[in-house]
């Protein structure tokens, strides 16, 4: 690969700094149960693309608790911070996906116009938690555990878990804390170990990735970044085509009515809000374009006709 390591590092820094402005609005249903004379104003936050919504649950909780002082523990109303969940265009947002992934997937796919979707307007619910669809995140420790789980899975794919297994517990803590506290250098001091190679390979064993398409579960497959037989590097195009073909085949076998469209040209391919060239080697993308959980989260959005 012919890119300069210094330029590549700058890319990781820019990605780290990208933010999304979000406007939180209380749901109509919960507004009616407020016991103050004025209803809550919308409130705005500028959030990092690679963070998770539960990271700011304290801020959201504090804001709304002032409006529901007396009846937050009132179970007849079912209004409770324990039941907090977020929605965009009638879709409950999965907490355990990074904020940037949710934004890229839903705002590109769902809005009626192609104009700017900023600030991103999200509805806050304090009742009727959709238990069968969403995982509950009661606190920061849980989201940290989820982050570590994902990171371990990424290392299992890349290095059979050898690198993360050899790390000290304090290194694991440093990864999460620097992610949470927005400390780029502290994060990458440890993360670069996870980007190294093992077993005399010049690449990762398998690439950790997930492909998101609207109204579908995400696609994750085993995919090697290097084709030994033909002595060539696999590209983003190769990875996506492989995954779409494989997924469509599964659907045919289970007699699904609507089979996935496997024509890449019909999709926009978005990672971190940008569309990388399809001929980019996937090994490079995995090293420089992954999220802090070491996965490549790729959104496929169907182009409008």
């Amino acid at each position, binding site marked *: 690969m012919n890119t300069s390591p210094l330029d590549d590092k700058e890319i990781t820094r820019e990605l780290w700094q990208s933010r999304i402005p979000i406007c939180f609005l209380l749901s109509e249903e919960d507004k009616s149960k407020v016991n103050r004379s004025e209803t809550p104003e919308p409130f705005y936050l500028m959030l990092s693309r690679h963070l998770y919504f539960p990271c700011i649950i304290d801020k959201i909780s504090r804001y709304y608790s002032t409006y529901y002082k007396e009846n937050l523990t009132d179970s007849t109303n079912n209004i409770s911070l324990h039941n907090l969940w977020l929605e965009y265009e009638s879709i409950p947002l999965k907490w*355990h996906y990074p904020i940037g992934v949710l934004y890229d997937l839903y705002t590109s796919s769902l809005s009626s116009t192609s104009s700017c979707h900023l600030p991103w307007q999200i509805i806050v619910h304090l009742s009727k938690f959709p238990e069968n*669809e969403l995982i509950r995140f*009661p606190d920061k420790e849980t989201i940290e*555990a989820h982050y570590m*789980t994902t990171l371990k899975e990424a290392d*299992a*794919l890349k290095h059979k878990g050898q690198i993360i297994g050899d790390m000290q517990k304090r290194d694991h803590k440093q990864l999460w804390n620097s992610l949470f506290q927005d400390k780029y250098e502290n994060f990458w001091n440890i993360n670069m170990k996870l980007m190294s190679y093992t077993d005399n390979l010049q690449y990762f064993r398998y690439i*950790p990735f997930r492909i998101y398409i609207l109204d579908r*579960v995400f696609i994750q497959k*085993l995919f090697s970044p290097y084709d030994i037989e033909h002595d060539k590097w696999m590209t983003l195009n190769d990875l996506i085509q492989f995954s779409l073909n494989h997924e469509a085949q599964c659907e045919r076998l289970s007699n699904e009515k609507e089979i996935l469209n496997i024509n890449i040209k019909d999709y926009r391919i978005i990672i971190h809000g940008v569309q990388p060239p399809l001929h980019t080697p996937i090994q490079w993308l995995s090293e420089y374009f992954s999220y802090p959980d070491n996965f490549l989260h790729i959104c496929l959005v169907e182009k409008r006709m």
Partner: protein
Amino acid sequence: MTFTLDEFNQCINDLYDQSKQIHDRWQLIKTPKGTYLIYSFIDDNCLKYDFHIVFSESYSVPVLYFNISHLDGSLLSLDDVWKLFAHKNNSNMYETITQQEHPILHRPFFILHPCHTEKLLKQVSDQSMNKKFLFWLSIYGQSVGLPLSVNYAID
């Protein structure tokens, strides 16, 4: 010490056959995305347990997914589950039981994290594939209330 997908499928098919012979409750579910086992029962406290044994491609080991619900269908929270099994586990609960999406059903389930499974299996690396599988199931299953008849261990 890991399993290949074929070895895993063989083990769960064998367990299913044994289950039928001893009139136990395991069910085998085949989908294009993978085959898995389900075990459901209701305990004396009217809690419904659903256990799923699914293969993890990323770790090349079986993983135990489970949900516990009240009879009205409402799921136990992570806190409730920790309290339920606290006496069985010494290690840090946050590391062992977490909530994740089932890889085939894509609904929230609790899991016992698989990152230590390979190390555990090294203890029985000289045993047959089926014995390794049963060893894994007895250790992980026991810590979350899965009843496993001793009859499975008898050849």
